[in-house]
């Protein structure tokens, strides 16, 4: 498996640390209901198909990436810098 780091280029899977679902990017606001925190911390979908998750390029540029991939075909559909997603969200 290879991930195309937006900064470093195509790199071997072993250069990356897997963190899990992109749900971690959507932290509930302060004072959110306990149910929202329960979702955020514990509840995850387990899709047969397209999924988005977080990977860290620990043996490369130290960027967090959001990877869109297909769990059935192992296709990598997109790799994006989390920093760019956050920048777009606040712009």
């Amino acid at each position: 498996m290879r991930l195309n780091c937006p900064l470093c280029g195509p790199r071997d899977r072993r250069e990356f640390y897997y963190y899990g679902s992109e749900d971690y990017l959507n932290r509930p606001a302060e004072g959110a209901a306990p149910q929202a925190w329960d979702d955020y911390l514990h509840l995850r979908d387990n899709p047969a198909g397209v999924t988005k998750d977080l990977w860290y390029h620990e043996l490369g540029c130290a960027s967090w990436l959001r990877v869109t991939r297909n769990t059935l075909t192992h296709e990598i559909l997109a790799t994006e810098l989390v920093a760019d997603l956050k920048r777009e969200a606040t712009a």
Partner: protein
Amino acid sequence: MPSLIAKSPLDGKSLTMGGVTLAEAVPGPITSVAPFAGREAELSQALRSLGLSFPAPNTFNESSGDLIVWTGRDQAFLIGPLLEGLPAATTDQSDGWAALSVSGPDAAAALMRLIPLDLRVAAFPPGRAARAPLNHMAAVIWRDGEGFTLLVFRSMAQTAWHEIETAMKALAARAAVGA
């Protein structure tokens, strides 16, 4: 501040085998430079006074012995000069890294046994740099003339040396049997 005697991580040693020379390099003070948001232009201006520019990903540039190399998203290592008051988060990294020079006609062949990148000059020409693993070690690498300079964590200096020496031995052995 008192001036203490700096000990280099590899005692300045060097080794030539076949078409590769491995040697400790002494690049000078290393400062990590991470530009403050929105002040990149100001930083470029400050670097221009040294003949340098903030490096794009996977590149480095140098001027009169000073060098700046990309080391990650919005981060570079300035090697050589000490600049006060840059519009950037700066930290002194000098003692944190060991520097190795790998040169000679088979330098790329030796390193490509350890670093999963195409380091031949067509793919990794002068001006190119990368963050990449040297086996399991995090490293910074850039093309230095016909060879390469590598930075690894100082605690990994002997391990890096051992790994590269082993690759050099394997290459020399193959050459000896004409393989």
